[in-house]
């Protein structure tokens, strides 16, 4: 065999056949003739059995309409760029296999809700990150730094393991009906990241974070609808984390 014939990527596993899907997109192109109106547009694209929604979007962008705009980067669910509303549920486009979302019917793809839309599926993430920054998402300690590592038992580490998984994709926050109303609620993601530090045995800033989240727009606005837990692409038990923060506040107050 000559090297020029070196095989490239192997074929998809399991031999799932190709099929056509209809993607129904909510478009918003303020610079186009549609102006400030958002509208629906449908595309039919041929896809493979193992393709994800992101692959279909790429196919549309690369082969049909270059103006289709969305964020994406890693394409395997760790960077958190491509959270969108797929068939009414918040998911990462790169983690959602087309065959899992009933490709017989048109698949609707919309921007996540509750954040200002900039163009097509791209929303302004600034309010989301502003809430995140407000809860002081960093280790707060007092006294001198140790010369080695801080000691923490495996159990203490386990206590907040779940909430360290957060990739800040905003799928949870933008699935929360309370957040949709006026965007004032801190939102699940900010609380999850506060949880990550409140329950870290090395951290000494729990008091301040609880104070911040005791706000009118803090944890007390959570209605435990579990939308956030369902939306989290990392499988974080978001609602549980919020309840744990509430419990910490109550034990602190009484």
């Amino acid at each position, binding site marked *: 065999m000559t090297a020029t014939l070196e095989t490239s990527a192997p074929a998809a596993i399991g031999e799932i056949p190709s099929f056509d899907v209809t993607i129904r997109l909510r478009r918003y192109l303020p610079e186009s003739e549609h102006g400030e109106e958002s*509208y629906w*547009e449908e*595309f*039919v694209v041929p896809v493979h059995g193992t393709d994800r929604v992101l692959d279909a979007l790429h196919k549309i962008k690369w082969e*049909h309409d270059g103006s289709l705009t969305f964020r994406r980067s890693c394409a395997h669910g760790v960077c958190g760029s491509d959270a969108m509303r797929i068939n009414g549920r918040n998911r990462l486009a790169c983690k959602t296999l087309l065959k899992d979302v009933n490709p017989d019917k048109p698949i609707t793809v919309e921007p996540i809700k509750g954040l*200002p839309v900039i163009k097509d599926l791209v929303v302004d993430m600034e309010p989301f990150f502003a809430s995140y920054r407000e809860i002081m998402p960093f280790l707060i300690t007092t006294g001198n730094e140790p010369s080695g590592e801080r000691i923490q038992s495996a159990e203490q580490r386990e206590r907040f393991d779940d909430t360290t998984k957060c990739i800040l994709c905003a799928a949870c926050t933008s699935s929360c009906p309370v957040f949709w109303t*006026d965007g004032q609620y801190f939102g699940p993601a900010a609380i999850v990241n506060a949880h990550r530090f409140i329950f870290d045995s090395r951290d000494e800033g729990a008091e301040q974070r609880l104070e911040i989240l005791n706000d009118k727009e803090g944890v007390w606005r959570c209605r435990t609808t579990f939308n956030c837990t369902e939306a989290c692409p990392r499988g974080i038990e978001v609602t549980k984390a919020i309840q744990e923060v509430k419990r910490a506040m109550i034990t602190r107050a009484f």
Partner: protein
Amino acid sequence: MTTTNLPTQPTLPNPRDAYKRLKTTRSNFELYGWVFMRASGVILLVLIFGHLFVNLMVGDGVHAIDFAFVGGKLTNPFWQVWDLMMLWLAMMHGTNGVRTIINDYAERPLVRLWLKIALYVAFVVVTVLGTLVIFTFDACPSGAPADLLPSICS
């Protein structure tokens, strides 16, 4: 490749509205509110089912209810306190619940304000009237046939 332009959906509420967090509040009000809802809920369960049990199940049950029965209860200090607690807790629990719903669903600040004003007015009117009734109820109105009055009137 087929591309179809579909009829425009209702416009998104101005998609480029700037973000601003309104004034923050740092008090325990919401915390106490949250605890109150749970505590009052539990107490209300006891009060309401106790009320229903006494009114509908004990003795002749629902057939026993008449002016005399109600009047009799409202002259008894135990039932006065019971009913008063039930009234206040239910009104506060309900009002706070509706306040939350207004916060969750009313998007415009002005709508929110008016709905809350209406809610609080309703709360005050109902609570004041109810309280007055509990304490000023005349179980023995003069001139009423004796067989309709509770036994304490004679």
